């Protein structure tokens, strides 16, 4: 079974986010980066399917040069090889043209299964995998919490709202978007890290793939959210903050 995992490198979760001079993106100079959380779960799901069924796990990532570190981490965890669509100006691609870029890179691989995360931590559009499925003419399912592959098909557990689930079956090849928590993530071993250095990372560019940036929607500006509620911030040392809060909860909010 050949499984392609679309993996995005995003700013680390606890980063201090500073808006850059253009007002349209972040100042990346003091950011650190990591693998988008659900994508790490998608990779783990792929590695487990390979352990059950044999085959190959190929990582696909579009991003600037720095994305190599995310790719190497995935290879160290056990992916067999990678495709890096190296592109500095990804911000010029809207969701559709970005998906076109990934679909173009994926199409020649003819994978049995394409896994993506359900949503990126930075843009959060939650769409790239579903659009890729449409562009590639493949069936899809989203917010997946379990994958059983058998012969020509796949049976998945979709998360619905408020604690409900549903099983759905479909033929392969297919695209699935994976939800965080589907499995337990593994760590890279020292051996894995060493081996990763020798694994193939194929570089491609948008020009080579024949995909142009498009903007059916354009990002005009980014800014700090506007506060809707008047929050009383309690200052002081921890003991003072605690004492003030207890006062407020007792006499103002009357909840204790």
């Amino acid at each position, binding site marked *: 079974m050949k499984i392609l995992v679309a993996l995005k490198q995003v*700013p680390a979760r606890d980063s201090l*986010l500073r808006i850059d001079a253009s007002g349209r993106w972040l100042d990346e100079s003091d950011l650190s980066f990591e693998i988008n959380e659900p994508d790490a779960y998608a990779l783990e799901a792929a590695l487990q399917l390979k352990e059950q069924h044999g085959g190959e796990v190929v990582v696909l990532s579009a991003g600037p040069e720095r994305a190599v570190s995310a790719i190497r981490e995935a290879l160290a965890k056990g992916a067999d090889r990678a495709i890096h669509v190296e592109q500095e100006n990804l911000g010029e691609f*809207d*969701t*559709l043209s970005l*998906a076109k870029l990934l679909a173009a890179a994926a199409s020649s691989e003819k994978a049995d299964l394409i896994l993506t995360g*359900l949503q990126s*931590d*930075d843009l*959060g*559009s939650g*769409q790239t995998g*579903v*659009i890729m499925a*449409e562009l590639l003419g493949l*069936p*899809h*399912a*989203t917010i997946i919490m379990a994958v059983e592959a058998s012969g020509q098909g796949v049976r998945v557990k*979709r*998360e*619905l*709202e*408020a*604690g*409900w*689930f*549903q099983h*759905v*079956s*479909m033929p392969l090849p297919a695209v699935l978007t994976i939800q965080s*928590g589907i499995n337990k993530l593994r760590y890279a071993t020292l051996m894995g890290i060493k081996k990763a250095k020798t694994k193939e990372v194929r570089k491609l560019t948008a020009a080579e793939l024949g995909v142009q940036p498009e*903007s*059916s*929607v*354009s*990002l*005009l500006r*980014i*800014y*700090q*959210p506007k*506060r*809707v*509620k008047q*929050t*009383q*911030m*309690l200052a002081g040392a*921890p*003991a003072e*903050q*605690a004492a003030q*809060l*207890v006062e407020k*909860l*007792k006499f103002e*909010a009357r*909840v*204790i």
Partner: protein
Amino acid sequence: MSGILVLTEQSSGAWHPMSFEALAAGIQLGRDLSLPVTACVFGRGVSGLASELAGRNVQAVVALEHEALGQYTADAAVAAIEWLVRDLQPDYVLLPHTYQVRDFAPRLATRFGRVLLSDTTGYTIESGAAVFQRQLFQGKLTADFAFQAPAPNFVSIQAGAFRADALESDAASVSEKAPVLNVSSLRQHPEAPFREAARAVDLSAAERIVAVGRGIQEEGNIPLVQELADAFGAELAASRPICDNGWLPMERQVGSSGQTVAPKLYLSVGISGAIQHLVGMKGSRCVVAINKDPEAPIFEIADYGIVGDLFDVVPALTEAVKKARS
């Protein structure tokens, strides 16, 4: 037609409540842009639901009926709604940002060579055109987006972004339409929805909840917040990553895929305040947030906020609460 098409959501004849929030967004946008609004409900046997929509201040209602829409599949939903959008030719298609919409709407927009603006929180009018807001970085920043492509343009609306007022008006006309579907081309085969084993705790009945998030760092630190919860006489709840890691059982998860709660007191510890968490607890009467990041989105909805390291604040608070309640 030019106008706004609002797609509502139902399953087995029951409305998804976010349908009416999307409808409110559509009605407001229609007023601002002087465009008529059509509301659509799709499924099998939906004419009764369609007549309910007719009293909701819209200009027209469509009941989109087909055998193959009886149980939701992405392929059937995309094909049926594609057919309707080609038939009606609206300027905007608005949808509630439900899990079902996440599943089919990106594919639908792609059929038209368009981009869905997903999970929008509102819009402003700039030079006569709508500019939509979305959250980036899990709510830490907001972005303004504008459509550059001709109609149809697709927008989904975040939970809680618009108020679902029950506006009454003269009844709009209801038309029934049957999309042309190639049933043999539908690829997903769904089974019946189910819940995991019965829940041992019912957080929705709790008067006080102390909820813990990833700021707690490791499983071994959970007892720290358990003690705080005990001091308050509160139930312990958690954000998703805590349950994903197995540090607390799934049944204690609050949010869109967990429980919805509305206690008198909701005290969050080391939770950032992503929308999927907020939708599960926004109805709480008094919200307290403890977080080391003053910019954490949870502070946008908190009544009382403490910026600080939870490992200092929580023990101090546990002591203070014990003293106050003894």
